[in-house]
């Protein structure tokens, strides 16, 4: 049996260690970039979209944010809204129950682009041929055509995801893609304006 007493690390020490890392510009844990292309300047905002995965891909996507992989140092981050995202990271074999939600999410994107993460998202994986999923060619056209990158694996390891993300062009994001004629024309329809919902004086 392990008999060593458990010591609580002091908060001050953790902070000092973290600060030292910042000052000498040496990360505490993180791995070197698995692909040289990741060193290029880049800004990719990813919105995750679960289409019925087993949660394995989510675990590995979450692992990308830990200090070891630290995906944000490559200019890639997970975004909370599809409206702010450059690309959707789709996991799972595309269940019928989520079709409508997935379509609405894609519609809310500035530019419909999808990365299919994991074998399920690519071709249905172990769930292929079930009545409840529309994997592969049976998926709606707008989803199928929007896929620009596929990451195989069940689930793909974080390093594999990073290597694949390195293939994304660095100029994926930005106003040039989202708004071809920037600044966009500012048209607020009267019925959509928030004023119309206010009681009149």
């Amino acid at each position, binding site marked *: *049996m*392990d*008999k*060593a*007493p*458990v*010591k*609580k*690390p002091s*908060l001050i020490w*953790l*902070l000092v260690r*973290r600060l030292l890392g910042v000052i000498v510009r040496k990360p505490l*844990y993180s791995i070197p970039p698995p692909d040289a292309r990741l060193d290029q300047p880049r800004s990719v905002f990813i919105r*995750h*979209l*679960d*289409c*019925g*995965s*087993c*949660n*394995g*891909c*989510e*675990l*590995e*996507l*979450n*692992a990308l*944010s*830990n*200090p*070891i992989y630290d995906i944000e140092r490559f200019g890639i981050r*997970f975004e*909370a*809204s599809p409206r702010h995202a450059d690309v959707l990271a789709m996991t*799972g*074999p595309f*269940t*019928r*129950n*989520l*079709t*409508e*939600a*997935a379509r609405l*999410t894609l519609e809310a994107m500035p530019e419909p682009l999808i990365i299919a993460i994991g074998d399920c998202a690519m071709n249905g*994986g*172990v*769930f292929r*041929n*079930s*009545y*409840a*999923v529309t994997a592969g060619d049976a998926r709606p056209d707008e989803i199928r055509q929007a896929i620009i990158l596929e990451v195989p694996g*069940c*689930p793909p*390891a974080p390093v594999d995801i990073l290597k694949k993300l390195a293939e994304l062009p660095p100029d994926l994001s930005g106003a040039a893609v989202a708004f071809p004629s920037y600044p966009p024309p500012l048209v607020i329809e009267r019925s959509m304006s928030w004023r119309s919902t206010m009681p009149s004086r």
Partner: protein
Amino acid sequence: MASIHSGIRETCRAPNAVTELPRRAPNETHFVFENGEDLVRLCQWAKQESYHLCTLVVTDERQLEDNAFKVWYVLHSAQQELVILEYALQDSRQPFSFPSIQATFPCVELLEREVFDLFGVSPLDRMMTGGAVLHAPYPDELHPLWANKSQAALKARINSQAARQPDAPGREHLPAGMFYLPVGPIHAGVIEAGHFRFHVAGEVIEDLDLVLGYKHKGIEKLFETRYTLDTGWELAERVSGDSSFAHSMAYCQAVESLASIELPETVHLWRALFLELERIYNHITDVSALAQDMAFDLAASDIAVLRERIVRLNADLTGHRLLRKVNFPGGVVLNSVPNLDAIKSTVTEVTRTFLGLGKMVMDLAACRNRMITTGKLTKCEAEKFGATGLVARASGLCDHDLRLKLPFGAYASMEELRRLVSATVAIPEALQKPWANRGMPVFDGDLIGDVLARFVIRVAEVETSANIIRLLLDRMRSSPSFYAEVSPQRRPAYERRMVESLRHVQNYEFGLGYVEGWRGDIFYWVMKGPGDTIFRCKVRDPSVFNWPAMRLAIVRKRNEGDAYDPSGPPCWENILADFPLINKSFNLSYAGNDG
């Protein structure tokens, strides 16, 4: 405590209408009921004797000798006893109605709704509404699990019919000042899909509607159509990704009990070791996420690094970070010769650091303030509504653990393991015992069912798991064959033996597998079809029982009096901002629930 036989004598008005079938295992009894009322009364008796419901299974045996649907209830007692109650729906006036035990075991409700969608059979005493797992895209009365429906026919039917109108949100009027706040099914983060509709008054959550089933993948039908008994593990380990090993282990145990073969002890030891590794990495992930939700990022990221170390240990041992492709009916194989000392030192080191960080989070005033009395599930509620696994233990049902109540594999053969498990929650005197030498003792008085209790029990269980792993490693080191029996060369032999044994099993026999995964108890019911096909495989994830418990922990409720904190507030209530924290402290599986 009374045995199930005395229960039958006490409750059944027509004892001749109950047939006992021969036992297949020493702790397993199997009764066939002809009278549904007797069955319901027996379940009422069983609830009083603190039996727990394991699962509800429905099989479509209309093509077989009984010409009817069958309902099977599986219960287990605290005395390691497993009871199977079988009832055939042979009443020709009501061939689609079964006697419901929902009034006795409320946790069965989600299973009943699922069964209504998949089979079209419903409880005798209630009207059911569909939509639990088959939402608007599916036509009415699809019944995908009927034995005569093929995948192609189901797909043709779904594609040919226009989709139903999406289920409109309820239009019930709320009192003035209250409003609905719908959230999901797509959430703002890397999370699974599920819909919550909060009823809020100001910031307080008055009620919560859970809409699950978005991730329904038709797993049970896939087992029957695409997989066979010896390949079903591939699907089983993808039912819920973070419980891959526990699910595949339960599946393997079900098939092994069907084939009634004995495994070498080494296989049991390795399975227990992997099960505990899975428990460790998941608990660490959850503690990290909880710290993150309390905006304590410093601790969260340090703990996330520990999680990565365990996951990499998994990859070194098995070749897969989430312990997949290592377990199959009949055995376990490893990639290469493992270095037992390296496993031991990694686990010890990670655990020690983790306990320190866990203590730090627990002791920080800001975090305590956030966790204490948030999301409270009292012991009484956990008992009544059948919460299971970690959630039940955090609510004070400290011994609600299948490793103690219905031991399997290595836990059945090794008394020391059970002792270590029961030392997770200590009574002060037991701390003096050598096996209870713990870095972070937890007392049952701490476990009052709030977020802090679930946090604490996670930290404590990581320590228990590390102790178990060390004990298992010591046991392995003492036997020279610790690797010979799990080397990849043995795989063909194990598989051949499995196929051989399955050949002697009669068609439509069933096997049960049960495992205490990190979330709670997982049950697999596997019924053999002709050849090596699966006639029916019922998967019961612990989340099925814990979702209703989570709703109960969130909504506003009267304080019914609490033995540990009699002076609590008049009402337990949570505000909207507490929801992410409570949800994370339960961390239930959407995928496992939706199937």
